[in-house]
């Protein structure tokens, strides 16, 4: 019988991992991911999860161990956050270039300096070009469900690419929610055992992870690019298959809320989206035509969906919990690129918010929609389009 549990995002990830039955888990604890790793360690200890748990000495070793285990055909999982993600940055490219279908949880957290344990997206977005699929979830249930889906996606033979599952640090990792735990037999049917076709094997020895000359390197990169582009359709298929089995659909690459007739659309990642929806409902009652578009996957990037869903909007706001210093938020850059490819000319505005754990309040989302309304009326392109939301002090700008 299905059962519900009142658990945190970290617990939900651990439950999702237990249901996915990885052979090997290698992880190093780091706030705010620690509880996920502790739970997994306990599950291995009490025998409810039959995995090798490797207590490694660093994040670099954690991902390296997963790469090695994946090379002999094991299903592998790791988890990290912030500085830990950067410490394994070298290995991120080894994992994606070697086409090792590793699944990793990343608890989104700010980067030093100033040192901060609180949330933003500067860690994962700085690794957008590492060749990993990146998904951002919004609540504990989606966290659990996306662990299972991430293995299905990474291990798809036309994808064979590692997946980074991003949860907002503290907001999701430490918030308790009622979560439905899927049945093991249903997960087993959804996610059958996997063996990579390119595994290290004594009967059929292979040279793995070799170097290449300039004459071949580009072709391997072309393959990676097309595998991740192909993942778009695989993500949609997995989402529908998951809905058939478990009764929950997350919309594939994006999740659009009240966007059909919306004049003003705000685009966000992760847990901020919930606050945006609440504000959108309030503003709708006041007669505003507003919508919320959540980007679930940053890679592959849902350019077709963004162009299609926003095509009737009069102004688009993008919330970035990051900034590429000296230019703009990275989500904003990606959205603008998609809109420009789609030949749309809707004014866009970038809201830098929630850095280092600063709260993104309902009031600030209201302020954001007011700015969008102004832009939609004046079509003023002169103003500064990269705006820090909720600065606590006056500035000279």
């Amino acid at each position, binding site marked *: 019988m299905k059962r519900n549990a009142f658990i945190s995002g970290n617990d939900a990830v651990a439950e999702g991992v237990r249901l996915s039955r990885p052979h090997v888990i290698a992880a190093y604890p780091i706030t705010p991911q620690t509880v996920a790793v502790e739970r997994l360690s306990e599950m291995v200890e009490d025998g409810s999860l039959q995995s090798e748990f490797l207590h490694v000495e660093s994040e670099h070793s954690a991902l390296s161990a997963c790469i090695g285990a994946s090379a002999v055909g094991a299903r592998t999982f790791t988890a990290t956050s912030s500085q830990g993600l950067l410490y394994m940055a070298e290995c991120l490219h080894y994992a994606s*270039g070697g086409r090792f279908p590793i699944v990793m949880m990343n608890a989104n957290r700010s980067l030093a300096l100033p040192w901060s344990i609180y949330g933003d997206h500067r860690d994962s977005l700085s690794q957008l070009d590492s060749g990993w699929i990146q998904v951002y979830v919004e609540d504990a249930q989606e966290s659990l469900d996306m662990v299972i889906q991430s293995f299905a996606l990474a291990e798809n033979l036309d994808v064979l690419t590692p997946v980074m599952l991003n949860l907002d640090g503290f907001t999701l990792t430490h918030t308790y929610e009622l979560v439905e735990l899927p049945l093991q037999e249903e997960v087993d049917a959804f996610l059958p055992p996997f063996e990579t*076709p*390119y595994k290290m094997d004594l009967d*059929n*020895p292979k*040279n793995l992870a*070799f170097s290449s000359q300039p004459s071949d390197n580009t*072709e*391997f990169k072309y393959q990676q690019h097309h595998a991740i582009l192909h993942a778009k359709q695989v993500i949609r298929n997995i989402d529908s298959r998951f809905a058939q089995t478990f009764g929950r659909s997350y919309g594939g690459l994006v999740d659009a809320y009240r966007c059909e007739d919306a004049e003003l659309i705000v685009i966000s990642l992760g847990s901020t989206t919930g606050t945006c929806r609440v504000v959108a409902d309030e503003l709708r009652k006041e007669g505003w035509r507003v919508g919320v578009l959540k980007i679930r996957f940053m890679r592959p990037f849902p350019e077709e969906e963004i162009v299609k869903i926003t095509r009737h909007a009069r102004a688009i706001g993008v919330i970035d919990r990051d900034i590429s210093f000296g230019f703009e938020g990275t989500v904003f850059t990606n959205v603008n690129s998609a809109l420009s490819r789609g030949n749309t000319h809707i004014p866009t505005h970038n809201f830098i918010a929630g850095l280092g754990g600063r709260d993104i309040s309902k009031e600030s989302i209201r302020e954001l929609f007011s700015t969008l309304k102004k832009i939609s009326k004046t079509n003023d392109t002169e103003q500064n389009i990269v705006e820090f939301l909720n600065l606590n002090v006056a500035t000279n700008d």
Partner: protein
Amino acid sequence: MSNRPTVQHFNSPKHISDYPVGPAFRAGFLTSTNAGWRSERPVLVAERCTLCYQCYMYCPEATVFKITGAVDFDFDYCKGCGICAEVCAAKAITMIPEKR
């Protein structure tokens, strides 16, 4: 050299699907020799060789082998580093300059 991998011809891929998915391929598939940078070569005095295989264990390029009698070197891949001569307790290996 029957127990050595041989150089084989590799058919260059014509289509992207001819490539393996990621850098993974059958092991021991040598497509070229690689010894052009050698300035010294090991020479063995077979009578002194005790077949202790320290040279075999230490050779970083796996170029030491034995078919019959004493050990031998695969000069298609030996880079002339001299580690074999250094580790040979019987002093059976000396390094001599390559003449070009």
